């Protein structure tokens, strides 16, 4: 194990330990409200940090930079969408949701429509979203450990799962709040330091993207292909290959001519000399000039895909259970709004750093273009820029620890939401919260941890965008219509959530399972695009279903809808806000 690996491992362990310490210091969490919403005593600035820390996951820390490395400016829509989602949350949901006094989405649904059936449906959707969301987080942890130490990915995934389970089961949300606030600033630091150093180095070597050539290997590089890829060769390149190329066993120097395309089999090793042009996976912009421009990739229906992505991220954020849960820890609706604005600023600062990391990785880690495993870009960048000397090793350890902080914070937030729902809606209401919560945590956290041990080929940012699509298709219509429309009925809400959930989940599962070629064969390229970006269909469908069915079942409107809406929108000053928790426990 190299010095860099040891340093990185130490840093990762330190982050985990510090998180556990912060999380366990001074928390006396023995009431239901303590566990679930930190007793709503979290100041808005701290809460904003915690929200940001919880929200910035593996997808943001690793995935977006990797997508920028491959796709260029088009990938910026992920970062923009993740941030704009908070604006939508702020505009339509933050204050009213906080004033509803509910602490989970099922609670809100129950308060608004008083339907046990809807509550169960919502609980199911929460579990679905959290599990889908946990997968990329845990796999990101595994990838990080794998990249820095060379160990199999599942080791890191299992370790991350165990740590998160222990933290959440032991402390509940109060401890998680401080952990996540700490982790936001740690993540920001872990990106800002390499970005500043890298920018200085980049300016020093005068590299520019404004040229019609592919990136070059800056030093002799060996690339191991772990999943089959198809490489487009823009300029002729000499490569020493060992393994399978174009279906033929190869062992020795090969020359790939310009304009050719080659299929590289699993387990193949490719050696490139310094200065050779980098072949890229098919579909990605092959040269830097194309990479700089929007819609440069070869795929079809780019506009459709982009708009669908914008819709999913814009509306999906408000449907994420762990994000909503965070807003319950605000003292009131005003504080919820203000913390949401602070979150916008914090996310913006973070994503600027992420964008810079993506740009720098195009220069210093082009070998990732060959394998398509671009998620490792951020992790490899420090040593690629600085070499394996002290500075490179230290910054590499910092980044690895920051990545772990990202997984831990998001995963713990998801697990808290998951355990909240499981403990209140799934488990029998027997025994004290103190006993039920840890049990719920384990029950909710083990399945995704096990599934995460099986690798998937999806980029983290794409996987998370799929989850956003599910959230946007289920909870977003429920929340927006529930908060702003008197006419919503329980039947309409259940139908809308189910329709949106089934449509989007089907697409997500198919995409995760790699069924897109099959679908593309049946429904054409449109279908394939929609499979990865279902939001543009599923979200309007869910809204439409809810509205139509609610109108058809008009008599089922809750009698107290006016009072409930008033409570959601009345200023705190009027004293109408009431916490659901007080009623329940």
């Amino acid at each position, binding site marked *: 194990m190299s010095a860099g690996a040891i340093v990185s491992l130490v840093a990762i362990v330190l982050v985990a330990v510090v998180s556990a310490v912060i999380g366990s210091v001074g928390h006396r969490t023995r009431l239901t409200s303590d566990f679930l919403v930190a007793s709503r005593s979290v100041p808005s600035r701290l809460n904003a940090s915690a929200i940001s820390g919880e929200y910035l996951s593996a997808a943001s820390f690793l995935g977006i930079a990797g997508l920028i490395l491959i796709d260029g*400016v088009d990938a*910026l829509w992920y970062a923009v969408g993740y941030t704009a989602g908070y604006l939508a949350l702020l505009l339509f949901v933050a204050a009213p949701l906080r004033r509803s006094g509910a602490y989970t989405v099922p609670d809100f649904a129950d308060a608004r429509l008083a339907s046990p059936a809807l509550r169960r449906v919502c609980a199911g959707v929460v579990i679905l979203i959290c599990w889908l969301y946990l997968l990329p987080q845990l796999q990101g942890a595994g990838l990080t450990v794998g990249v820095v130490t060379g160990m199999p990915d599942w080791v890191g995934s299992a370790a991350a799962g165990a740590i998160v389970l222990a933290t959440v089961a032991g402390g509940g949300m109060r401890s998680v709040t401080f952990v996540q606030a700490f982790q936001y600033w740690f993540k920001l630091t872990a990106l800002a330091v390499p970005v500043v150093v890298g920018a200085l180095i980049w300016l020093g070597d005068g590299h520019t993207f404004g040229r019609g050539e592919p990136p070059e290997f800056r030093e002799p590089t060996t690339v191991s292909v772990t999943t089959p890829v198809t490489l487009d060769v823009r300029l002729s390149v000499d490569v020493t290959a060992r393994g399978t190329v174009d279906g033929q066993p190869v062992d020795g120097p090969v020359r790939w001519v310009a304009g050719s395309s080659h299929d590289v089999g699993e387990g193949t090793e490719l050696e490139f000399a310094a200065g050779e042009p980098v072949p890229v996976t098919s579909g990605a912009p092959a040269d830097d000039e194309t990479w700089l*421009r929007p819609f440069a990739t070869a795929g079809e229906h780019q*506009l459709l895909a982009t708009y669908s992505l914008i819709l999913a991220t814009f509306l999906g954020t408000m449907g994420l259970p762990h994000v909503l849960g965070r807003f319950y820890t605000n003292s009131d609706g005003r504080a919820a*709004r203000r913390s949401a604005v602070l979150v*916008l600023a914090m996310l913006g600062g973070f994503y600027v750093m992420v964008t810079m990391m993506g740009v720098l990785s195009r220069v210093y880690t082009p070998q990732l273009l060959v394998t398509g495993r671009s998620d490792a870009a951020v992790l490899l960048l420090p040593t690629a820029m600085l070499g394996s000397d002290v500075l490179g090793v230290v910054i590499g350890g910092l980044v690895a620890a920051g990545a772990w902080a990202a997984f831990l914070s998001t995963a713990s937030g998801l697990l808290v939401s998951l355990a909240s729902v499981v403990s209140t809606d799934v488990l029998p209401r027997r025994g004290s919260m103190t006993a039920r919560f840890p049990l719920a945590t384990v029950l909710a956290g083990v399945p995704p941890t096990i599934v995460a041990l099986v690798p998937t080929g999806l980029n983290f940012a794409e996987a998370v965008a799929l989850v956003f699509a599910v959230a946007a298709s289920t909870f977003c219509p429920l929340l927006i219509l529930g908060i702003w429309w008197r006419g919503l009925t329980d039947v309409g809400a259940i139908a809308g959530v189910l329709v949106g959930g089934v449509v989007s989940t089907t697409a997500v599962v198919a995409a995760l399972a790699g069924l897109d070629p099959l679908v593309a064969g049946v429904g054409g390229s449109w279908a394939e695009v929609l499979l990865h970006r279902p939001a543009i269909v599923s979200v309007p469908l869910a809204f439409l279903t809810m509205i139509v069915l609610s109108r058809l079942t008009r008599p089922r409107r809750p009698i107290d809808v006016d009072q409930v809406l008033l409570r959601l929108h009345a200023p705190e000053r009027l004293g109408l806000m009431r916490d659901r928790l007080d009623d329940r426990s």
Partner: protein
Amino acid sequence: MSRPTGGVQPSVRPLPEEAVDDDRSGPADTYRDPGPATGPGPRTAGPSGTTGAAVPGAATPRPRVPWISGAVRRPDARPAPHGEDGGDAGSGNGSASGGANGSDSGDRNGAPPEGRAVRRSRRADETDGGSTWLQQEIARRVADRAGESGRHARVEPAQGGERPPASPAGVPSEADAAPGPGDPDTATPVAPHDPAPHDPAPDGTAAPAPDGTAAPAPDGSAADGDAWRRHRPRLRAAGPRPRSTLLPDPYAPDGVRPTDDTGGWPAGQGKQWPPAAGSSGLPRRVPGATSSWSQGWAPNRTALFAGRAEAPAEAPVAPEHTPEPPPETAPVRTGRPGGEDLGTAGAGEPPAGVATPAAPSPGSLPAAAPAPGTGTDRGQREHAGFPGISDPDGILDDLDDLDEDLDGRDDLDERDDFEDLDSDDLDPDDLRGPAVERTEVIWRAPGLDVPVAPAPTPDPAADPTASSPELVVPGPEPYTGARPRRFAAAATDAPAPDPGTAGEDEAGGRVRIVLSERRSTAHSSRGLSDVQDPGTVGTVLRNSLVRSQLLLSLRVGMVALIGLGLLPALFMAFPVLGGIAVLGIRLPWLLLGLLVYPFLLGLGWWFVTSAESVEQEFADDVADR
């Protein structure tokens, strides 16, 4: 907090008017005068001490009024008033004093109307009978308080919002004011004293500053804000009793007070109070004494006013207060027990101030000297100790006083309008003398009133209106009763606005002020019921709120969607855009990688401020109903 300021401003405007009114209208003036008188009052406390036990009772009730006018902050002042009130309360001022305290808050809340009726009846009873009446009142008060607490809380918040800023200044003024009320009753008898008391009062306010000189005052001022905050918690935590205990001690040991003041707040005084009352042996309020004292007061007020205007004059006055008042004041304070919490610190001082005016006025000068020293104590709000304390606070108080004065005047005016009761209260005050101790417990709420100590406000007004003294005497007691209510009402309104402007701050202020109520409690039951009404009115109100908020959200959302949503189409339609470099960065990268975040942040900020203003308007509408 902005609202509070706003409230202050309005109050300021009224002040001049009020002042004028005072001059013009005898009765009204009298009430108002008490306010001004109250300013002197603390100083008068010294006199009261001199006058001895007799005066305290009378004096105390009136102080209550000032308290009310003063802001909540004046807990210290309250104690003093309470101490006085305690005696009064016993008598039936309870309605005025205790009632004033409680009623004030209650009035503000909206409960006032009922409370007023009850109080009126009580007052009448009080005037009629002594002990029985008192007992009845006590029972009523207890019941009322239970019901009114909410109101009080509400009122306080509003006041708190406004007053907090003023509180520092207000405290001293309040202390003065507290005495003032007492003065009215006693005032007539004391008439001779008036000049002296007045002088002290002004001195107390001004003198402290001089003595403490700028240093104490500034410190006090700076500290005052903090101190208030700190104190408030204590107030809450500490029951009335502690405060009451505190009060006596301060008075008895005026010299001690300074030290206490400097080091400890009302809390210390509060502890001492009960024992002090007994131990100090200070004469409890005697109606007659008070009356005489009050009379002396009125004249003093004018002098005081002048003194206030003129910083130098104050210094002399201060001395008077400190020395002599303590003994006498101590008893008075005990009387106030009701005021206890707030009053503890302030109460103790006010009595002292009163005492000084009456007998001490001559000797008070020396005392005043000590007072300045106490002034260093600044931090402590014991206005009562005021000379010393007042100095530090004095400066602050002066500022606060301005605000408070305005408020107080308003209150006074309101009182005048509504409350004949106040006049009735005067009688109760007499009764109060004996009942003081009992009242104390009840009077906790009154403690809140103490802050009202609007007396300071009156002072400014008083200055303009030299004639005010006479008027002042009668005014105080009645005002106490009336003031609370109106004040409460005013406060409620004010609070509502406050939240909007600075909900958090206000809330904090409220909490401090209020002993037990929640901030969130709906202030205006009528407005709230309108909003919650299932009928047309409620529907229209609710729909207007939801619609305005939804339109706002959609407006901001559309800007965001158009701003972001047009970009992909533009990039697709005009590939040239991808080739444009701005500052060395391609336009798409610049837009999507950097500028989009400030854009979103700006939209978010725009929305938050707009949404809060919408809610503010809505809350105001509801509050105005």
